[in-house]
């Protein structure tokens, strides 16, 4: 009897353990995973043909069309899920003890990589948000501007300036992007197991190919965008963009 009672009691408190881990899995996919994809796609629009940075400017303006709603959307939709996913992620890392030196299986190496890339992505995102997002402004960061002082488009210029601020910024971004993309791609693969969608080794293998392909494509998009900003001509291109955009809006 007492055993049943204690079991029922344990089950009651255990409920959150399950829920927290399932939410950790879910937040990684939605909204964080979806956000990462959208973010990298938006960035890649810097590579679009036409006046330099124009398409990127338009993409960012579309996001900022939310106006004052953008802040709560960012906090509830991105920052809080990211914070939750990170805290639980660090707790999960603490409960694991890597043993890849003795068991060099692909799955085991991916397991360790998932943890390492999670940590790298976490610190990279901290740096990235400080450097570009307005929340970094009180700490001498937050250099991204949608418009310059004269009201011209500045999204691509300010991003490119940040990427070119020092020789090591672009490599740091490359590592951060690759870590984030790996973490998402492998996370999709494990989440399919976690939620019991891929059960047999064969289906897990097929899902592995799909996730790997997804990761490669998303990496190319992310690195392509990075290269786009690294090679962005800050001088004449930006002025041209400003003029052409003003013309476009006036007509």
């Amino acid at each position: 009897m007492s055993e049943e009672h204690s079991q029922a009691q344990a089950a009651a408190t255990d409920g959150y353990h399950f829920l927290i881990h399932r939410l950790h899995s879910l937040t990684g996919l939605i909204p964080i995973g979806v956000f990462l994809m959208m973010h990298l796609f938006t960035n890649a629009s810097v590579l679009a043909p036409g006046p330099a940075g124009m398409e990127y400017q338009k993409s960012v303006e579309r996001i900022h069309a939310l106006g004052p709603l953008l802040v709560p959307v960012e906090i509830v939709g991105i920052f809080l899920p990211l914070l939750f996913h990170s805290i639980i992620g660090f707790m999960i890392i603490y409960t694991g003890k890597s043993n890849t030196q003795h068991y060099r299986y692909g799955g085991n190496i991916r397991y360790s990589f998932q943890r390492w890339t999670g940590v790298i992505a976490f610190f990279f995102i901290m740096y990235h948000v400080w450097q570009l997002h307005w929340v970094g402004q009180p700490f001498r960061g937050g250099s991204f501007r949608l418009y310059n002082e004269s009201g011209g488009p500045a999204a691509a210029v300010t991003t490119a300036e940040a990427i070119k601020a020092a020789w090591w910024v672009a490599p740091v971004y490359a590592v951060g992007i690759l870590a984030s993309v790996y973490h998402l791609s492998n996370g999709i693969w494990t989440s399919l197991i976690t939620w019991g969608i891929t059960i047999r080794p064969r289906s897990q293998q097929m899902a592995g190919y799909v996730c790997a392909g997804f990761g490669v494509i998303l990496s190319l998009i992310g690195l392509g965008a990075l290269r786009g900003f690294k090679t962005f001509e800050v001088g004449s291109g930006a002025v041209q963009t400003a003029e052409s955009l003003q013309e476009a809006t006036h007509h």
Partner: protein
Amino acid sequence: MATATHGHSKHPHEEHAHANGRKFTVRVLRQEMAHSGSHWETFELPHEEGMNITTVLQRIAANPVTTDHEQTTPVAYDACCLEEVCGACTMVINGRVRQGCSALVHKLLEESPTGIELRPMTKFHVVRDLVVDRSPMFQHLKRIKAWVRVDGYHDVGPGPRISPKEQEEAYPLSRCMTCGCCLEACPQFNDRSPFIGPAAISQAILFNPHPTGRVDRDDRLAVLAGQGGIVDCGNSQNCVKVCPKDIPLTDSIAKAGRDTTIYKIRKWFGR
């Protein structure tokens, strides 16, 4: 397999020297008792044809002298079935967990020509030398009710029929011998994690669909959905790689993930 394990105590080494007399070294991590410190001891033995680790430990016991010519005690070890069905002789051999009885010396020397290294499993408390206390595994089996309930010992007639398809699903899972390989290789099974490990999860998946075992289905799922249950798995999938019985442990883990989610949603709606 191992020949002449009895009645040749006089000169066991010389007798088999002609079979494959090449000498090899065996390093053993010794520990006198549960809480004492550990140290390495090295022995040298001539190779015998078909020699396995159990034979090696028997030869050491017959002549417990280290390579430093020091007289020592025989190495304590567990062994029972000698045919890889009981799991008693599970230990870490050349850095990888496996059974001593089915680990053949000539194959181990191919892996590691410098010699063989034996140590107890690291995820369980050492009793002495290579003997560990695997009772946590049995506690896990009790927690997930890894059994089919019977009302008594009287004849209750034939049991419910199980289709050949269900039997095919169940049989591989029933081969588990609770040896501990999956737990030893699992990065999520350690003293910082409450994880019960793949073996117990797989047993829950074995008994849940069973016509009689089904009675305790929700109790098992409640444990799997709780602290140390399925969500503490990290999907490294080492378990299925090291399992000596080729049990589809990762299939069981994925099924447990699916079944616990459905169970929790069902509970949430009060059913």
